[in-house]
């Protein structure tokens, strides 16, 4: 691990992408511990349920919740094969987690990772032991509850060999903590012949700053799915999660965003195809409702027979919004096959009029097409239950109808 002095220097280092946020703007401490024993009768229940976290925990294998910088709730229904605890507890139990702590994300990457490192950020630790397939999704919830403060959590997820897990992470802001910053460092390690589906659903405030930093290392013959959904207004969000693939490993990134007025969203996925026959798919569907939307996708082909496809599709629904699609393909050897498609524009007139000729008015027609466009992007690899929840969220999303 780097020395604190080196990391301190990185506090001045701007993020590679997105608006530079001034960490000094967030001058309130957020170290209070708020325990939530009973999720169903908690004051935070509605915030959780907005982002796919079910309070009754039916068909969930467990729940871990953070309010600001401290754990609030941790429960698991799984008798064996899975551990869920705070990272601080895991560091004690596993002697510093030397193989996993700050190995998939660099502390000196930028000011946000540096801040998390220097604050010694706590987070959730999840470990699925070799040979176990966890039936129901594990849910984690990150809630911002203190205005003008920084949540700097550091999560570690380990799925060992021949194992599988689905995770649903819901992130939200309570109404009085609109102007706060969420920094979430997540390190994900997937062993050989394993799989992890990691689905993140968000509902931030109109001024919230969001800077997640996620690194995933995927072992041989394993699969990683990363679903990222944000349909509500946010202040400034920038995220570019990266995965590194071994032989015959695969990764899928699905991103679904609506950039409302005053939202500035810059997100996507980065995959290093480092293993022979590794495969990746990066899909992004986004809509600008007057906000700024940047959809990135980047693949780096470093191994023979690697394959990848990247798709960025964006619709501008309101003037005043902007959308930028940046698909990048980089290859360092001949024997790779990578393709991309990008499309930016308005909703096609012939499609609107086709639906109008069936009796829908123009707003209904646009709304139906836009919702279809969004849910069309979520078809690949989503757990059935989450897909239903997403379709519900899309049906409720404000796209001008």
């Amino acid at each position, binding site marked *: 691990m780097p020395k604190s002095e080196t990391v301190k220097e990185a506090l001045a280092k701007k993020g590679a992408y997105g608006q530079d946020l001034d960490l000094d703007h967030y001058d309130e401490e957020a170290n209070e511990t708020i325990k939530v024993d009973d999720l169903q009768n908690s004051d935070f229940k509605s915030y959780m349920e907005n982002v796919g976290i079910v309070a009754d925990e039916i068909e969930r294998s467990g729940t871990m919740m953070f309010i600001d910088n401290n754990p609030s709730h941790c429960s698991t229904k799984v008798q064996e094969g899975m551990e869920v605890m705070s990272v601080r507890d895991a560091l004690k139990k596993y002697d510093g987690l030397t193989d996993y702590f700050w190995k998939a994300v660099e502390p000196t990457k930028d000011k946000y990772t540096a801040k998390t490192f220097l604050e010694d950020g706590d987070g959730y630790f999840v470990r699925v032991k070799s040979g176990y397939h966890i039936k129901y999704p594990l849910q984690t919830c990150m809630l911002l509850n203190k205005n003008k403060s920084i949540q700097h959590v550091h999560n570690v997820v380990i799925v060992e060999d021949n194992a599988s897990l689905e995770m649903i992470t819901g992130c939200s802001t309570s109404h009085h903590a609109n102007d706060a910053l969420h920094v979430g460092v997540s390190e994900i390690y997937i062993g050989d012949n394993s799989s992890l589906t990691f689905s993140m659903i968000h509902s931030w405030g109109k001024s919230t700053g969001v800077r997640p930093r996620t690194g995933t290392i995927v072992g041989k013959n394993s699969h990683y799915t990363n679903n990222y959904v944000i349909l509500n207004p946010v202040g400034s969000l920038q995220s570019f999660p990266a995965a590194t693939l071994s032989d015959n490993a695969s990764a899928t990134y699905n991103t679904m965003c609506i950039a409302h007025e005053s939202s500035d969203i810059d997100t996507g996925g980065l995959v290093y195809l480092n293993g022979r026959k590794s495969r990746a798919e990066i899909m992004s569907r986004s809509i600008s409702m007057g906000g700024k939307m940047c959809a990135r996708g980047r693949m780096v082909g470093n191994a023979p027979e690697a394959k990848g496809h990247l798709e960025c599709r964006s619709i501008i629904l309101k003037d005043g919004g902007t959308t930028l699609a940046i698909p990048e393909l980089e290859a360092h050897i001949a024997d790779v096959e990578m393709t991309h498609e990008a499309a930016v524009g308005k909703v096609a007139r012939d499609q609107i009029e086709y639906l109008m000729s*069936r*009796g829908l008015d123009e707003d209904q*027609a646009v709304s139906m097409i836009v919702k279809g*466009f969004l849910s*069309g992007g979520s078809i690949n690899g989503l757990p059935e239950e989450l897909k239903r929840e997403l379709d519900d969220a899309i049906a409720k999303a404000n796209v001008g109808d």
Partner: protein
Amino acid sequence: MSDMLKIIDLHVQAGGREILKGVNLTVKEGETSVLFGPNGCGKSTLLASIMGYSTIEVTSGQILFKGVDITHMPVDERAKMGIGMMMQRPPNIYGVKLGDLLKATTKDPESVIADADKFKMEKFMDREVNVGFSGGEIKRSELLQLTAQKPDIILLDEPESGVDLQSIDLIGRKVHDLLFSDADGGQRHVSSLVITHTGQIMDYIGADYGYIMKDGVIDRVGNPMELLKEIREQGYGE
């Protein structure tokens, strides 16, 4: 019977070019008229003008529907007044399921969805509208949507094109049902205007009048069977 559709000296541009150069045509309540004519003469443009698609621009003339001037009315209002259209090549609507579209466009979704098997479309309710549909599937989907909509005039753009013989039989019978569904005592109320090259659809629905369009105008009006026979024997005389 009263005039369902009346087109008066209609001039229409598309892509900066004048396509319709003064079309006059009337379809009365319960009547079926067929439109013949060589490719590019303006038949599809005429139907697009009646439906109100923005690909065309009416430069002069009038379209009256049930006595109301609809020349510049939005597409959805025309649909609500009772105009229904089967396009020859409808656009793909990605992400929108056929079943959801049907539910959104009919007052009686349950019976329409239940009817889907009669159109051999029951397995298509969760499919995206028109995406990957074959020629016959598109026509059957369009007809199921029209059945949900229950229009008073049906505009059909080449209902037989790109369809195998078995499907033509099903399509022909379903178009017949649409036109004759609310007939009372032999008196029909639903009208139609049909573009056809082969005339096959007439085996199922008959036709009261035939029109031959040439270069943006109605060149001839007559008995549809006689006109078809003449076209088969002599072509369009070009």
